[in-house]
């Protein structure tokens, strides 16, 4: 039982290390001592301070929030749908958000500021459609129906996205960065618009931790304890949709986090209790994305590469190692 606090402490340590790296490293060399001065408010002005405060700090915060949001979204979906393959992609959010963003990039390139709005709108629209189909007719809200509806919606929006890209191939390069998933140093603007969605999603997820534990004992036991299984699933879906759509609005399509981080955390901690898995997935996801993003923008500096491949590079070996030990 001492394992869990240890694992959680290790995750927090990893997060701290990733945050420090993210602030200290970049295309421009800023000495560590100066970074500390600037963060403590004793900066001497100039471009270095601007780089740390206006570029690296918002980006690091974004990485933490998006990483935590995706990790938590994956954890609550896997719990609610009792399916280890569940992730924000499964409820159609990623496909819809991708379509919404590509729509703006390709058809309205002059209004690039609308990109987060487009991604958020279509992401939530896709999730709404998935829930509407899954909650209609027979077998309302069953896991199988949700997953199948999600796959159908994902295919639909992916086809739409591919069609747009094929119709306007000359605008594809700017779209690829979004599809591969990545953060950009754009200051605090995007967060300022999108933070309410993150906030509601996080709060809802926190309130769902105990109900999800009840759901893990089966629909009957959950009902006996006074919960409503379908309502819990719906609420979990909504929370995951909010977190995933807001994340896609800022960071493009990052599919790996939501699926794998909860599993890594479960295997490391040796438990599927949501009281551990949900917060740990948040911390783990934040650490992974911050680390991956730092790598993505320092490896071939000053070129910034999409962050998706780097998270896979960091996460997959750990995942496979834990898999070997667990089984």
């Amino acid at each position, binding site marked *: 039982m001492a394992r869990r606090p240890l694992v959680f402490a290790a995750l927090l340590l990893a997060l701290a290390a990733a945050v420090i790296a993210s602030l200290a490293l*970049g*295309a*421009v060399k800023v000495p560590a001592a100066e970074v500390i001065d600037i963060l403590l408010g004793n900066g001497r002005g*100039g*471009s*270095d301070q*601007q*780089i740390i405060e*206006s*570029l*690296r700090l918002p980006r690091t915060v974004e990485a933490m929030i998006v990483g935590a949001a995706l990790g938590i979204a994956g954890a609550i979906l896997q719990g609610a749908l009792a399916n280890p393959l569940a992730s924000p992609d499964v409820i159609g959010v990623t496909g819809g958000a991708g379509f919404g963003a590509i729509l703006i990039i390709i058809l309205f*390139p*002059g209004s*690039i*500021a609308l*990109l987060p709005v487009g991604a958020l709108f279509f992401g939530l629209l896709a999730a709404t459609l998935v829930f509407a189909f899954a909650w209609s007719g027979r077998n309302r809200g069953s896991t199988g129906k949700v997953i199948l509806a999600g796959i159908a919606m994902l295919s639909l929006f992916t086809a739409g996205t591919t069609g747009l890209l094929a*119709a*306007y*191939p*000359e605008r594809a*390069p*700017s779209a*690829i*960065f*979004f599809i591969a998933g990545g953060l*950009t*140093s*754009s*200051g605090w*603007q995007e967060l300022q618009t999108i933070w309410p969605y993150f906030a509601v999603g996080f709060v809802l997820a926190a309130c769902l931790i105990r109900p999800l534990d009840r759901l893990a004992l089966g629909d009957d036991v959950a009902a006996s304890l006074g919960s409503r299984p379908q309502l819990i699933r719906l609420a979990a879906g909504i929370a995951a949709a909010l977190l995933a759509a807001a994340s896609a609005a800022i960071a493009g399509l990052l599919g790996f986090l939501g699926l794998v981080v909860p599993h890594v955390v479960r295997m490391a901690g040796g438990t599927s209790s949501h009281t551990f898995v949900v917060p740990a997935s948040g911390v783990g996801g934040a650490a992974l994305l911050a680390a991956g993003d730092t790598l993505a*923008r320092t490896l071939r*500096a*000053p*070129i*910034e590469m999409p962050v998706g491949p780097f998270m896979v590079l960091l996460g997959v070996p750990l995942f496979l190692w834990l898999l070997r030990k667990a089984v």
Partner: protein
Amino acid sequence: MGSKLAQLLVAALAIVALALPAASQAAPPKRIVALTPFAANTLAKLDVMPIGIGETLGGAERFSPKLKGVTTLPLSHPNGPNLEQLASLNPDLVFSSQTWAKGNQAMESLGIDVVLHDPRSIQGAFADTFKIGTLVGRKHYARDLLQSMRKQVKSAVAGIEKRPEVMLILGVGRTPFTFLPNSWGGDIVTRAGGELLTGGVKSSSGFERISDEVVVAENPDIIIAVPHASADDIPSLTEYLRDNPAWASTTAAQAGHVYVSVDNSLLQAGTDIAATIRKVRRAYLKN
């Protein structure tokens, strides 16, 4: 007494009238970054040295030799330049283009002035040259420069003997887009004496997607193909366009008049307009 007051008032007004324009004429920006080759070369011609110039990955831009030694900022989607690098140069003004829309937004939020110049016609290039000159405090120099540029272009288009039918095709991978008259390349070719065929399509972006069938239907005398791909893929795309089987039945293909233009001169506005026109006439239009 009254006249003294009146004199004072007039003097005060005169001082204000003289001082105002001087005050509004703030000092021209010193630290300038030019992300487009057009802006960079124009600045060089105006004898204003930028502190940084942008170069796309693959670097096919033609820069004035005066710019040798200036810091180059690699440009990539979606931001354009690396913002940390840009910030460390501490620029007052950045000349950018619509391609880097996301980056432009970020630069503005960092407090940097961003001006967009992406001329798509020769007239537009002249106008932008003047605007850039004004912005950097070289208005008179710019005016003189323009005069000489106009003279050069005039002599470059002198003595056009024939006006062949031309299709100017952008090959985005294997997909053909036609240059329209409202694109840079389209304007150059038209000025050089070509009659630009477009298959009847219109678009505000200056390019429109067509099919190879349209090319065959228009049956131009000359086809100029411009490959648009990553640096590594350009050679193979060039091969493909040169011998494109889909165009084999056109007059151009059968007369051996299918050319591939590999440099950026038709794709992106440059400052060597007269030279570009001459090259088009000599190598492609043969007029």
